[in-house]
């Protein structure tokens, strides 16, 4: 905020762009763009929440998508049982996420490093299979949500523009909250525990309870993302909690940059736009080279995305955000 650095200009431009997506969509009638960016904004919330524990807390969770599913199922199941009020659905979903985070975090945080990664993955897979076995609620076919969360006429989530702005405000709110947390006493304690936990204990910090609290906060924030995602797709299925989805969230945070609050937002935008745009680009290039449409080549977009990620990990440790910071220093 202090200086007009390249990084701050890009961040500012991105936020303005995100705020204006519905305006552009309505002017051009390009509704696809708004659908895509609604999804991007929602998953950015999840990535920001993951980065609170991963980037700032040093807790690399490979099961963060579990919270997307838990919150989504809370909304879906309540809707299925005829409870459509958002005033009930949303708190229930967030509380469910908090309880799951508390229970699994209490166990997972007794381990370190690769064991922590594995145990969070294991808990997420457990929940995934719980979803698969929910026969009453569609099992692995998933559950259609016929009505979006109802806020007694105060706000109509079925309106695409309204819904987009609800998501956007949730993202901005989440980023602001995480930013406050990161710079608070609590946030410094968390970052200290990432940096040197032994020293933290030696100077008098009971690190475990702070790390666990942080884990629960991140789970609840990701739950918010899950609520929005279920409302966005009008559908919930176990696929939302698949481990590859947790992997996507990690990629967003790493790609965007784990060192800052907004890095994962950039990562979410970059990853999901590339995912959408690369197949398209491949088929255009393919047609140009071979002279005829090559539909099958579309499937290979990951072959291009993979090396790009590799380059980021190898040469740009700070992700996109880190790269932008470097431009300033020349």
């Amino acid at each position, binding site marked *: 905020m202090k200086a007009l650095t390249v990084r701050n200009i890009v961040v500012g431009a991105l936020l303005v762009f995100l705020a204006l997506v519905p305006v552009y969509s309505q002017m051009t009638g390009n509704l696809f763009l708004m659908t895509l960016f609604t999804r991007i904004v929602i998953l950015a919330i999840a990535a920001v929440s993951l980065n609170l524990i991963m980037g700032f807390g040093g807790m690399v969770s490979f099961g963060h998508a579990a919270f997307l599913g838990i919150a989504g199922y809370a909304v879906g199941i309540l809707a299925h049982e005829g409870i459509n009020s958002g005033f009930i659905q949303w708190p229930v979903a967030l509380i469910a996420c908090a309880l799951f985070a508390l229970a699994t975090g209490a166990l997972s945080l007794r381990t370190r490093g690769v064991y922590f990664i594995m145990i969070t993955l294991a808990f997420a897979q457990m929940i995934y299979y719980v979803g698969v076995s929910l026969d009453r609620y569609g099992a692995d076919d998933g559950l259609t949500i016929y009505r979006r969360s109802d806020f007694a006429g105060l706000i109509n989530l079925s309106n695409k523009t309204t819904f987009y702005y609800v998501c956007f405000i949730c993202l901005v709110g989440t980023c602001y909250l995480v930013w*406050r947390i990161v710079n608070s*006493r609590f946030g410094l304690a968390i970052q*200290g525990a990432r940096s040197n936990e032994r020293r933290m204990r030696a*100077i008098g*910090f009971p690190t475990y309870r702070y790390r666990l609290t942080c884990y629960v906060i991140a789970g609840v924030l990701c739950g918010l993302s899950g609520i929005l995602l279920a409302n966005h797709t009008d559908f919930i299925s176990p696929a939302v909690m698949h481990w590859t989805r947790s992997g996507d969230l990690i990629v967003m945070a790493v790609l965007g940059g784990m060192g800052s609050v907004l890095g994962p937002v950039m990562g979410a935008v970059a990853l999901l736009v590339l995912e959408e745009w690369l197949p398209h680009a491949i088929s255009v290039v393919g047609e140009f080279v071979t002279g005829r449409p090559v539909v099958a080549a579309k499937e290979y977009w990951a072959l291009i995305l993979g090396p790009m990620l590799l380059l980021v990990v190898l040469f740009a440790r700070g992700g996109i955000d880190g790269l932008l910071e470097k431009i300033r220093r020349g």
Partner: protein
Amino acid sequence: MADALLSVEGITKRFGGVLASDGITLSLPAGELHAIIGPNGAGKTTLIGQLTGEITPNSGRIIFDGQDITALPTYQRSMRGLARSFQITSLFADFTALDNVALAVQAHAGNSFHFWRNARTEEELRAPARAALERVGLSHRADNLVSSISHGEQRQLEIAMALATNPRMLLLDEPMAGMGPEESARMVKLLLELKKQYTILLIEHDMEAVFALADRISVLVYGRVIATGLPDAIRANAEVRQAYLGEQEAVVVNG
């Protein structure tokens, strides 16, 4: 001793077949600077580990300020006023020097479940942190990242962090480790100053420093205290000379 601030009563620690601590008994009255010397592998670090709570002894008791702390976790010992510095510099590398010390202050300023206010602007944390930096002569480095200051300065910062926890007693694990002669001399000066205010248990290899600072010295060999006494008595002790000081005799005589 009735007025001992710290007493260690026969602690024993086994690692498999190795007796790292063999019935160690020590007693430190308030105000004393007690040095522990001994060859590598004598069990000095194991002893510190047990005093700070990172290692649990197999038997024996540790009494601090009249209370048995043998089973207390590390952070609670810190809360009671037992502060340590680390042999291998152990800081928060991606924080500034001032952030490091402020975190130590924060640990003793109530719980850290404060999620909103910017901790880096809280005078309640920053002022005592600045004072601790000043005390060890590091004020000019306050805003430098720890990873960018010299090794000697990092050693000073170690001490500042221990001081910032408002301790009653300091456990200093080789504060001179890896320092040049000039830096060592500065550290000795600082410790002479701190000695007036704190009870100190000093583990150190630098004999010149030990004999310049210590009120009493204990010699640890193979996990056992083979001698405790005034510096002159230790220097003259035949068993100590044979076990440990032999090769360093020249230094001792000159020192």
